[in-house]
């Protein structure tokens, strides 16, 4: 008897929990809309970068919904899910929204975390849901034959290494002058940070510069020893691959050991206002790679200012973040999503896309210069064209920006990475992965 009562009590409890968990499903019906599950990390150490990023994302989608009346009439339903930048919470979010929400369909998932991107690889393959990580995906997933559902759009760290070397070559007067130049890479000691060791090794062999690799342990609030090492090694340039607090500390410590800020080039995650500003005067002249150029002069950004921000409809709480690196990054990401929907709708009709259709759309994306101008995004994004064996985009480019003590200024035009240079290495890695996992790659010419 006591067992029975206990079971009843437990079952009741479970039912209450279940009811609560399923409760939001009873909210208003959203059939006919396209779901955009927005994976947020508004808490935790990386929250400062997410907040403007999320706002850029939301503002652009709001603009599409409210000003343009949706994507060919299809409204986008944004549903936030907080991951706190943990994989566990991210997986819960993925499971919660992978099959849509209240009738709105899921066409793609943007996990907003490299770790989560990897974690979702197998699940997405099984669920046939595309995982899109602009600027932060897995480099081997460029090979869409092995990774049909991963889209590491726009950028990768290997290309970044190339762009850095390219820029330094420009500064020293050509590739041939690189011989003997000392380039120190100060990296966050993590998978992300270590990712440029291999390409820089290859590049250093090719061009003859001296490649110095120095790790900084997480979170990186003490770097005196590392910078002394850099100074002692007589480095000419520092490639700063920081993350979070590591970046401002690096810039400050550099100033302390007398290393000039305009010889430090930050990585794309070291190149936001929040990276430079806390370093104060020490950051003046600091350079960074930017795939998401900051600024408010781009057409679409101006439009957003007029139609969203000035109308009080922006997600930003602090309007000084408008037009910052992360805000613009959010806008760019949202553009990729909307453009993918448009691409898909051309083939499947003007209705919400399913995940399979989303996969096709992402694989056949083509945002060319003409479209970029139409979008009012000239200078904000470089052309993006994906194919089955290039899920990243055929041309990878970035700008170098410089901090003037107050804000970022663009210093160069797009610097394009030579996509052929590492293509074989990456293909080989993808093939090895396929072998390890027992995956048969798709044929490149299947579409």
């Amino acid at each position, binding site marked *: 008897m006591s067992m029975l009562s206990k079971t009843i009590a437990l079952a009741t409890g479970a039912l209450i929990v279940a009811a609560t968990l399923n409760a939001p499903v009873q909210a208003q019906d959203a059939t006919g809309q396209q779901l955009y599950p927005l994976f947020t990390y508004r808490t935790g150490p990386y929250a400062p970068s997410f907040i403007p990023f999320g706002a850029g994302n939301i503002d652009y989608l709001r603009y599409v919904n409210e000003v343009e009346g949706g994507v060919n009439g299809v409204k986008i339903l944004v549903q936030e899910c907080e991951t706190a930048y943990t994989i566990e919470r991210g997986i819960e979010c993925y499971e919660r929204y992978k099959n849509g929400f209240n009738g709105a369909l899921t066409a793609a998932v943007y996990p907003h975390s490299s770790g989560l991107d990897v974690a979702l690889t197998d699940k997405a393959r099984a669920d046939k849901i595309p995982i899109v990580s602009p600027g932060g995906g897995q480099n081997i997933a460029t090979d869409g034959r092995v990774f049909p559902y991963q889209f590491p759009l726009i950028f990768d760290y290997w290309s970044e290494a190339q762009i850095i070397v390219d820029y330094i070559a420009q500064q020293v007067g050509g590739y041939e002058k690189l011989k003997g130049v000392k380039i120190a890479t100060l990296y966050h000691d993590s998978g992300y940070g270590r990712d440029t060791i291999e390409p820089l090794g290859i590049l250093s062999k090719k061009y003859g510069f001296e490649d110095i690799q120095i790790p900084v342990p997480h979170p990186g609030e*003490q770097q005196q020893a590392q910078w002394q090492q850099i100074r002692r090694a007589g480095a000419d340039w520092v490639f700063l691959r920081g993350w979070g607090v590591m970046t401002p500390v690096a810039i400050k410590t550099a100033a302390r*050991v007398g290393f000039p800020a305009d010889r430090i080039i930050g990585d794309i995650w070291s190149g936001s206002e929040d990276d430079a500003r806390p370093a104060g005067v020490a950051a003046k002249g600091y350079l960074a790679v930017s795939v998401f150029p900051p600024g408010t002069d781009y057409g679409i950004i101006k439009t957003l200012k007029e139609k969203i921000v000035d109308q009080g409809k922006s997600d930003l709480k602090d309007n000084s973040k408008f037009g910052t690196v992360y805000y613009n990054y959010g806008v760019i990401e949202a553009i990729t999503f909307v453009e993918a929907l448009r691409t898909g709708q051309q083939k499947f009709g003007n209705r919400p896309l399913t995940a399979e259709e989303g996969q096709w759309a992402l694989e056949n994306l083509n945002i060319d210069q003409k479209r970029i101008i139409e979008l009012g995004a000239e200078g904000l994004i470089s052309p993006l064209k994906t194919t089955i064996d290039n899920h990243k985009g055929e041309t990878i480019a970035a700008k170098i920006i410089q901090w003037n003590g107050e804000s970022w200024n663009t210093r160069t035009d797009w610097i394009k990475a030579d996509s052929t240079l590492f293509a074989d290495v990456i293909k080989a890695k993808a093939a090895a992965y396929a072998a390890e996992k027992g995956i048969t790659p798709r044929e490149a010419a299947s579409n």
Partner: protein
Amino acid sequence: MAYFFETLIAGLFAGLMYGLVAIGFVLIYKASGVFNFAQGAMVFLAALVFVTLVEHGIHFWVAFAATSALMVLTAVAIEALVLRPLRNRDPLTLFMATLGLSFVIDGATQFFLGTDVHMLDVGIDDIADDYGGLFISRFDIIASLIVIALVAVLAIVFSKTRMGVSLRAVADDTLAAQSIGIRLPVIWRIVWSVAGIVALVAGLLWGARQGVQYSLSLVTLKALPVLIIGGFSSIPGAITGGLFVGAGEALADIYLGPLVGGSVSTWFAYILAVAFLLVRPAGLFGDRDIERV
């Protein structure tokens, strides 16, 4: 050799900062017998409140006073809501409670003040001067002087004032302290307040260097090995332990790191601490009790 010394000196300066954070732990450990995991959250809270006030145009010292007052309020609240109900409970429970407390504090801090990274200018230039071939930052020197002054003030307070003697009495023998009428709740409130103000100073010095942001609260993890080496109940120990860890980490990163292909400072301090424990189980300055049966 100059390189060695520079690394060593840099390590020692960093260590002094670790020591500063560790002092907050020592104070609380002496009074309440708990390793206060929320100390890092308190550093974050203090620094963020201060910087927010300053950004709103409030004068440095006014902001300092206001933040100190907030830290005192926090201490009073912690005493009433956490410590008093958990009196006479085992240390692990108390530790877990401070873990919970750290969630409450840093959650509330970010809830009210946001998660932005703030620059904090305390008016000291972080520029290296050349001292006979050794580059030492002016900021480091001034920060060290502040730490030394703070330690001196605390030392005087502990040896000369009634509060100080009471605190030492509580740390030494809580029951006896109660028997002569010393009120634990009062001591707790005072000590947590002082620890809060130490957290503020630490927050300002750390925040000036790395910006005021969430990762300030991670200093807790740096403080633990410092305390193990120095002993949980000794302020000179906290400073010495800090210097040990700071110097050890810096040197290990330079000389041991390349051998194993990476930075070692994340765990080096802990291994150092465990090695210390095995040799001196009560730390450098701690005292060990004899178990009676």
